[in-house]
């Protein structure tokens, strides 16, 4: 970051000094320096900002951790979050790809732009952050995405005393909520939400813990924990650099995603190598490096025989690639959960 303008930008908004914390709550949306669509009235200067979050996600006993860095930039019709996510411990990317974007519409929910697969975890975290920014005391709605439920959940929030900034605690305002019907209905039995804000009204931490039952029996609950590590406003120039870097990476990542043919990979490589040096120095330099490594890997794969049969033969005799997919009831099924059983995998279509 060349230059931090957080202070000056905030004092220019002229609101901070005159407001107590309760009032701040109600104007939270208008105050917060990042993560907000321009509809809330930024005046002439939309916020170009960056923030890094640590994410911890729990599904039953399954835990995943990663770091997600969000760049907030301008986009037609709203604001765009360009994100990069990485598991710092082993250098892998949640969902398999290091970069993606979400457009924040002026109204309604963030819309993932599907130029590459948004990792479900990352999407969930981004939507959760976005929703928590607008939280208010009293009766309201929590975005269930935070705990893997694609609908709004009724919560009651109250302001609780903390040493610095302020904090909201929320819990499910109904006794239980049926999420999915059927023979074994999935029921949300509890939801605890905790949101922390700094004295400027910026979200610093958000936690959700959900308890569920299925068909009346215990069912693995879900948790999402978000902790903000860094936040900064960006110089206009730097914001543009992020945008340009993203536009540069987008088609390449798209090929990584879809194109397994050698020709497609070579075309992507050519395009990538032409301008790589320029962007390697920019704010997305780390992602450029990631993508370079991925291109090499995928090239190796693409130079192997193109016939899927030939490729598949190499899989035999080795551990079956693991996957997690949803069944018709929306439950996640993981191949490795069936270790100890013989499994027949049938890939099928109607035709």
């Amino acid at each position: 970051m060349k230059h931090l303008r957080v202070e000056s930008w905030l004092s220019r908004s002229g609101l901070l000094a005159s407001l107590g914390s309760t009032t701040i709550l109600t104007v939270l949306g208008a105050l917060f320096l990042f993560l907000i669509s321009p509809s809330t009235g930024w005046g002439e200067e939309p916020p170009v900002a960056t923030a890094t979050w640590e994410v911890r996600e729990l599904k039953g006993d399954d835990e995943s951790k990663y770091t997600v860095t969000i760049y907030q930039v301008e986009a037609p019709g709203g604001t765009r979050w360009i994100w990069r996510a990485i598991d710092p411990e082993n250098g892998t990317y949640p969902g398999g790809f290091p970069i993606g974007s979400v457009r924040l519409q002026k109204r309604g929910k963030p819309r993932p732009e599907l130029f590459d697969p948004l990792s479900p975890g990352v999407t969930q975290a981004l939507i959760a952050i976005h929703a928590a920014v607008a939280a208010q005391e009293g009766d309201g709605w929590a975005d269930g995405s935070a705990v893997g439920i694609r609908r709004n959940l009724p919560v009651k929030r109250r302001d609780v005393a903390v040493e610095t900034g302020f904090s909201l605690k929320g819990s499910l305002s109904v006794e239980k909520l049926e999420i999915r019907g059927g023979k074994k209905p999935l029921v949300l039995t509890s939801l605890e939400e905790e949101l922390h804000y700094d004295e400027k009204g910026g979200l610093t931490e958000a936690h959700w813990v959900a308890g569920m039952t299925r068909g009346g029996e215990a069912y693995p609950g879900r948790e999402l924990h978000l902790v903000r590590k860094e936040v900064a406003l960006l110089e206009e120039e730097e914001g543009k650099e992020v945008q340009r870097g993203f536009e540069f990476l987008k088609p390449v990542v798209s090929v990584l995603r879809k194109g397994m043919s050698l020709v497609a990979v070579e075309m992507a490589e050519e395009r990538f190598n032409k301008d790589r040096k320029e962007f390697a120095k920019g704010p997305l330099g780390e992602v450029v490096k990631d993508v370079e490594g991925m291109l090499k890997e995928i090239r190796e794969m693409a130079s192997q025989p193109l016939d899927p049969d030939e490729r598949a033969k190499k899989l035999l005799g080795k551990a079956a690639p693991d996957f997690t997919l949803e069944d018709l009831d929306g439950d996640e099924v993981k191949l490795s959960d069936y270790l100890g059983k013989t499994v027949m995998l049938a890939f099928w279509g109607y035709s």
Partner: protein
Amino acid sequence: MVLAINADNDGRSKIREYVKEEGLQQKMLLRGDGVGFQQYHIKRMPTVYFVDRKGVLVSRSPGYQDFADLEKSLKSTLRR
């Protein structure tokens, strides 16, 4: 255990209807983002893989198969 992964992106209701019509018993999984299809290099439908108890991929049968052939693959996987 039979896991059947659907290739189309038709959503639950259509698959459910089909499953009901045909009286299918397998565990039906949705395509999701298609990663499963990439991992397993699926070109033709249906393609059947057998995974033994230790999680090792032991056989692959692309395209429509005689029941006899599938049975043979299944039996040899079960023996492992």
